[in-house]
């Protein structure tokens, strides 16, 4: 069974390919072009269209207790309005897992990472992910506010024990990488600490935020996890917090480190309101730190809800909730905070935030190190991506929007002066090739032989937002799933995870820990295949060692 996507402009930066040609698929994988004259079983005409690998989203809150609590908190914002198409039940059900998979697939996305899974909630997250159709998924396990890790650090247990604990956690929770969220900040909040910075000490544990980040950075690296430690820094959203991000970037110290939603840390204290863009300084630091990657967390105007494991930040932001209601959970480790918010185009602060994100995109030189997130749904829903791509590719479009925003806000940013426009090839790097490399997914994000046959075909529209909003064709594992921007049917993807080697002495230690602290078997947090209820829900990704 050979499929040919014929005559499109194939943009595959991983192989330096950008030109008219064919893409061939067989048995769910990309194959080399067969000898001339070979007849395909099915041919799709892509003439005049753009052909790319399926897009990969490295940071989008799409599943788990906190996402589901946000749904229950805000029924008024996601009413279903359309009867479902016969072949795709619940795909129009407001904010459901089913709608999530369909909306991503329609834009040509085929792999999405849920970046905030507390180990105790991993099964819940995976059950939701299993009900997201079409796309493949992955989770990042969140450590750094957990008693076990901080206890190991306090007890000076050494790097090997911590590396084994990281490996055990990844295995138990079926995760692809490790994230740390305001390292130590949630623990500090439980002790009524209300501001917490990189060199502050976690009460009762005597370790600093910096030490937690460095410890986890080394542990993930030493365990051979392909994705570097994914860091949500301290002091998110506060004026002057650029110093937190700069300190974290400097602390990378030659080892890979990923900083999430950097836009939320791009704030200075200049200007008449004591709030300004510090994106230029931040971009300069990123440009100079070759081991650091970032994603943006772009803000777009409209109603949304912020969903975060940064309990300290969400606790402090609860009085700014729009509408005025929020959920703050003090749970094991991080807990969670859900605070609805509306970004308003006429609001000085929101307009600065919008500009900071775009400045970061445009001032960081290397598209291999900057990723396009909105930190869905924290800056904007993921459905805003096409509009962001269009803004990046079109200076006039930016200028038009800048003209509608408060002039005093634009005056404390550098955005109006920036002329750069992203090319389609750069968009392909940022949305395909680079994310695959960052996550260690060798068989994704490109169209070389052997790659998973995840392919998106777009009409070459002048309006790039329109083009990226509705793919002409999308193939997942070689199967056509979207035609003319509409999902044709469901198929069920997999959750990608790593399982680094470990000394199994840690297993007995975890069993003892859970019996002592919780009076429970540690079996409860191990995510098993048969608990998910769909065939082959997981796929193992190789580690570096």
């Amino acid at each position, binding site marked *: 069974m050979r499929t040919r996507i014929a005559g499109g402009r194939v943009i595959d930066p991983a192989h330096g390919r950008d030109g008219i040609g064919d893409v061939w698929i067989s048995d769910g994988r990309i194959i080399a072009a067969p000898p001339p004259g070979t007849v395909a079983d099915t041919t799709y005409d892509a003439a005049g269209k753009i052909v790319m690998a399926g897009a990969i989203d490295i940071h989008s809150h799409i599943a788990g207790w906190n996402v589901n609590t946000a749904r229950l908190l805000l029924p008024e914002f996601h009413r279903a309005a359309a009867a479902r198409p016969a072949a795709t039940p619940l795909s129009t059900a407001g904010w459901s897992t089913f709608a999530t998979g369909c909306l991503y697939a329609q834009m040509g996305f085929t792999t999405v990472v849920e970046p905030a899974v507390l180990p105790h909630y991993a099964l819940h997250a995976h059950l939701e992910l299993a*009900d997201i159709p079409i796309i493949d998924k992955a989770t990042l396990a969140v450590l750094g506010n957990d008693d076990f890790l901080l206890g190991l650090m306090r007890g000076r247990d050494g790097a090997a024990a911590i590396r084994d604990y990281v490996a055990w956690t990844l295995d138990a929770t079926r995760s692809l990488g490790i994230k740390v969220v305001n390292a130590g900040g949630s623990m500090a909040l*439980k002790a009524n600490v209300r501001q917490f910075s990189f060199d502050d000490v976690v009460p009762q544990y005597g370790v600093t935020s910096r030490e937690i980040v460095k410890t986890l950075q080394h542990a993930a690296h030493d365990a051979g996890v392909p994705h570097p430690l994914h860091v949500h820094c301290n002091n998110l959203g506060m004026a002057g917090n650029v110093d937190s991000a700069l300190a974290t970037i400097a602390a990378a110290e030659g080892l890979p480190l990923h900083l999430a939603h950097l836009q939320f840390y791009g704030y200075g204290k200049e200007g008449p309101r004591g709030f300004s863009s510090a994106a230029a300084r931040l971009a300069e630091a990123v440009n100079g730190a070759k081991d650091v990657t970032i994603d943006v967390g772009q803000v777009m105007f409209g109603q949304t809800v912020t969903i975060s494991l940064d309990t300290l930040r969400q606790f402090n932001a609860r009085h700014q909730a729009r509408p005025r209601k929020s959920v703050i959970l003090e749970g094991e480790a991080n807990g969670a905070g859900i605070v609805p918010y509306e970004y308003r185009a006429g609001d000085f602060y929101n307009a600065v935030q919008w500009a900071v994100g775009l400045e970061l995109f445009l001032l960081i030189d290397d598209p291999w190190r900057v990723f396009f997130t909105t930190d869905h749904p924290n800056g904007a829903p993921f459905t805003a991506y096409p509009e962001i791509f269009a803004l990046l590719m079109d200076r006039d479009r930016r200028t038009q929007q800048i003209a509608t925003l408060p002039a005093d806000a634009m005056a404390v940013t550098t955005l109006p002066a920036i002329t750069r426009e992203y090319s389609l090839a750069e968009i392909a790097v940022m949305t395909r090739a680079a994310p695959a490399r960052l996550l260690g997914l060798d068989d994704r994000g490109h169209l070389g032989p052997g790659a998973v046959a995840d392919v998106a075909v777009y009409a070459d529209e002048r309006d790039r937002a329109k083009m990226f909003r509705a793919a002409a064709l999308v193939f997942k594992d070689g199967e056509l799933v979207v035609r003319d921007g509409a999902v044709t049917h469901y198929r069920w993807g997999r959750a990608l995870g790593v399982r680094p080697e470990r000394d199994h002495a840690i297993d007995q230690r975890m069993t003892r820990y859970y019996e002592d602290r919780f009076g429970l078997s540690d079996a409860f947090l191990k995510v098993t295949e048969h608990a998910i209820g769909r065939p082959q829900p997981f796929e193992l990704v190789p580690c570096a060692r």
Partner: protein
Amino acid sequence: MARAWIGGKPAALERALAEAAGLLAASRCPLVTGLGTDVAGARAAIALAERIGAVVDHMDADVLLRDLTVLREAGMMLTTPNEARLRADTLLLVGPSLEQDVPELTRWLGLDAPRRHDAPGERAVVRLCPGRAAPPMHGETRIGRDPDQLPTLLAALRAGLAGRPAGKTGVSAKAVADLATQLMASRFGVAVWSARDLDALAIEMLCGIVADLNAHTRFTGFPVAPGDNAIGVLQASGWMTGVPMRTGFGRGYPEHDPWRFDGARMVAGREADCVLWISAYRAAPPPWRGGPPVIALTTGDAALGVPPAVQIEVGWPGVDHDAVEHFAPLGTLVAVEATRRSETMSVADVIGRIAALSSACPGEVATGSPTRTRAKNNTETAR
């Protein structure tokens, strides 16, 4: 192995399944309720309801929705019993139903054992209006007695915290003022309540007290939830449809309306013309008499008063078969292994079989239960 009854008389499983499928197919307004089941059963039930345009309700929706109403109108600060056990220096136990609702509560909160070596100091236990029958707890302070005092007492306490005067509450003003002082002085306090004892306004008042205390110290809350995996079912409903139970699919998409899709009201008003009643953790009967034909999926062969039109025995989740359910002490979903594995079918199995007998639908979303027994039963629905 599955026992089944039609009109109260033993029947072959196949016949009972066919009868159930026939009743659902003939129904113009089916109601899926009870919904005491594991997560797989909830997923299967909701998927079936979506497919046949049914309404989804739950046997404890009244109580669940009281907390949810406050959550979605005012917000909440929440914690888990386990976090309360490890960290709380003050427990504010509200109302008389806590121990009755959750006999394990004292164990969850660590009130039945010496404190851990790393726990913060002494712990104060304050009980608000525990009723006359409540057995005393070690070291507790009681304020108020009768539950009907609760709304005014909570209002007076909130006023006291804000330094405002309050009217009579049935409790001395000094006791209320002392309690306000004590709560302000706590380092990490947890309020525990059951929505059985409080209406939505009183719950909102209590949550407001928690929120106000956080201006100075740390305080949070834990609502005791109904049993029968109600929270697990709520979670599945949330991710599948975006909304809680009391949701109708008659228009082809989920619509949540706590009044319109109240199953008891729909039965009383003769709107529902067929009921799929699920109670797998016990054999709870529907809370009404008479009404439309009932297809009952329950554990054992318990008589349900008037014999249902169809009754099919299902396994007890976590006993007869592996299951995923909500585990309240940690506030999360966990996988439970069967403690007495049997061949009894799970709710998801039975619904899968019924769905398979209905007309084939290409986009079926449910895939049956996660149990290891599923393969033997060969009950997967079309995928």
